[in-house]
């Protein structure tokens, strides 16, 4: 039974002629050869979000980012010019330049310069080599030739992106396209109360995006989140999105969610009623927010949350009550990735505000744990190859699009790179 209108073609999937409706193969999530292709064709070529400008408040602020899929570590630093990114590699003999205690762990802080722990070469915040220990022992060494190797770095709406493709010419804004353009102006920079979570997940990176790009599973897997009566109703009702949008490699799903506040207070748990908060965040907006055009594209009054998938591994969820959440999925192997989530709220004005945010964050974690655990089970069953074709319904359109886009990047790479061979997922 349709509760919300679909496009004239009869389904969201058929509205996008590049998408098929056939069963899908998940070979792209279990083939080690395909993962090797993805590392180069996707993580070596596209714009990757590594954080936000608020993490670098003043000149000298920096953080490092480990990007295993690109076999790289990057320093992102604010200098007098703005924000720049460098490979975290000393130009002398390749030591990792910035790290604390454990070279594989990310770090952050404030520095006037970077000094290599190995032989004390120094670099200024713009990456120039400024000091070489026992310089006269070298052979006509010209320090100017030994600046840190830079990584392309651009900023959109305060989100910092890097791109490992030295020869790439597409700007970040061009890459992000119209979906992102339609998000401009949202008060991202005012939501500076941040909760961050991290998890090592035993599943291909795309599988977790799959789990967050469809809500078909929500009334079932998360059924016990709501009160018993409510959960029965939700499961019967199933899930239908208000809208789906696909633009190039990126996509979004717009979802309803009338829980803030709920029509009937008995729909939610006692602590939510008492505190006026829950999964959708504190019920009362921190301030008036004018929605940019990409949010709630159906302009539906029951709108609850929009989830944007910016290819390859960055999601932004904007919630009706006035806060946002980001997800990142950093692959570390064909069947492993590091999952990061960050909740961004307007700073709490008092303890009540703060406690409301705390419950929203706690609720996110309960859901996330259920989602995460399901993934490991999915990965191992896919790897059994007992079944190889899977039907995807219309509410799973973004998954279809994600896997198809990822395969297209790999196919393009194979076509244009001498010696590259197609993986089993491409044939």
């Amino acid at each position, binding site marked *: 039974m349709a509760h919300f209108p679909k496009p004239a073609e009869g389904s969201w999937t058929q509205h996008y002629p590049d998408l098929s409706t056939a069963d899908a193969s998940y070979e792209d999530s279990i083939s080690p050869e395909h993962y090797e292709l993805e590392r180069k064709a996707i993580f070596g070529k596209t714009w990757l979000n590594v954080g936000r400008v608020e993490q670098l408040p003043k000149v000298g602020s920096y953080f490092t980012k480990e990007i295993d899929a690109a076999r790289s570590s990057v320093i992102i630093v604010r200098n007098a010019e703005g924000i720049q990114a460098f490979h975290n590699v000393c130009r002398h003999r390749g030591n990792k330049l910035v790290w604390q205690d454990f070279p594989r762990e990310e770090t952050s802080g404030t520095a006037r310069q970077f000094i290599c722990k190995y032989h004390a070469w120094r670099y200024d915040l713009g990456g120039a080599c400024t000091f070489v220990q026992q310089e006269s022992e070298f052979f006509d060494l010209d320090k100017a030739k030994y600046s840190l190797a830079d990584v392309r770095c651009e900023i959109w709406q305060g989100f910092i992106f890097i791109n490992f493709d030295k020869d790439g010419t597409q700007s970040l804004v061009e890459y992000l396209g119209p979906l992102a353009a339609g998000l401009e102006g949202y008060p991202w920079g005012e939501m500076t109360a941040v909760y*961050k979570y991290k998890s090592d*997940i035993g599943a291909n990176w795309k599988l977790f995006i799959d789990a967050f790009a469809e809500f078909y599973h929500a009334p079932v897997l998360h059924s016990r989140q709501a009160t018993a009566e409510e959960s029965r109703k939700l499961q019967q009702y199933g899930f239908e999105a208000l809208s789906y949008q696909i633009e190039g490699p990126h996509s979004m799903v717009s979802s309803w969610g009338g829980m803030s506040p709920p029509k009937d207070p008995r729909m939610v748990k006692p*602590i939510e009623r008492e505190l006026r908060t829950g999964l959708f965040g504190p019920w009362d907006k921190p301030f008036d927010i004018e929605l940019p055009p990409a949010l709630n594209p159906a302009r539906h009054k029951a709108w609850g949350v929009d989830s944007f998938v910016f290819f390859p591994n960055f999601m932004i969820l904007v919630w009706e009550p006035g806060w946002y959440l980001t997800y990142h999925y950093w692959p570390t192997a064909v069947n492993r990735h590091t999952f990061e989530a960050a909740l961004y709220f307007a700073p709490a004005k*008092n303890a009540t505000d703060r*406690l409301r*945010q705390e419950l929203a964050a*706690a609720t996110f*974690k309960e859901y996330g744990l259920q989602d995460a*655990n399901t993934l490991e089970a999915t990965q191992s069953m896919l790897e059994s190859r007992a079944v190889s074709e899977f039907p995807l319904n219309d509410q799973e359109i973004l998954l279809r699009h994600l896997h198809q886009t990822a395969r297209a990047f790999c196919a393009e790479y194979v076509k244009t790179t001498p010696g590259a061979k197609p993986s089993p997922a491409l044939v």
Partner: protein
Amino acid sequence: MAKLPADFADLEPFTDWCLAAEDDRFAKRYGSNMDEMQTFYDAVFPRMQDALAYLDKFDLDDLPEDAYNLLLLYYSLCTISFPVEAWRQPRVPDAGAAHISNVLAPAV
């Protein structure tokens, strides 16, 4: 030595729930049984509005230590609200060995 403001002396038996890190609160929940959490919930929940009225009088960046402890107690109430109100068990159902770690939270 009292850890909480005098008005909340009745909650003193529960101050082992005053834990600053979310991961520690979560670990204590996973290490507790339902009776322990229900007792904690039954004591703390009815005092929530009193506690917030008390805490809202302070600047969040400048909370006296006993007030901060009181706030931490209510963070823990959030942590155990799902087991008590929904799951009827300490663990998240169907979450197996999955683990999500909190690596950053606002200062207070």
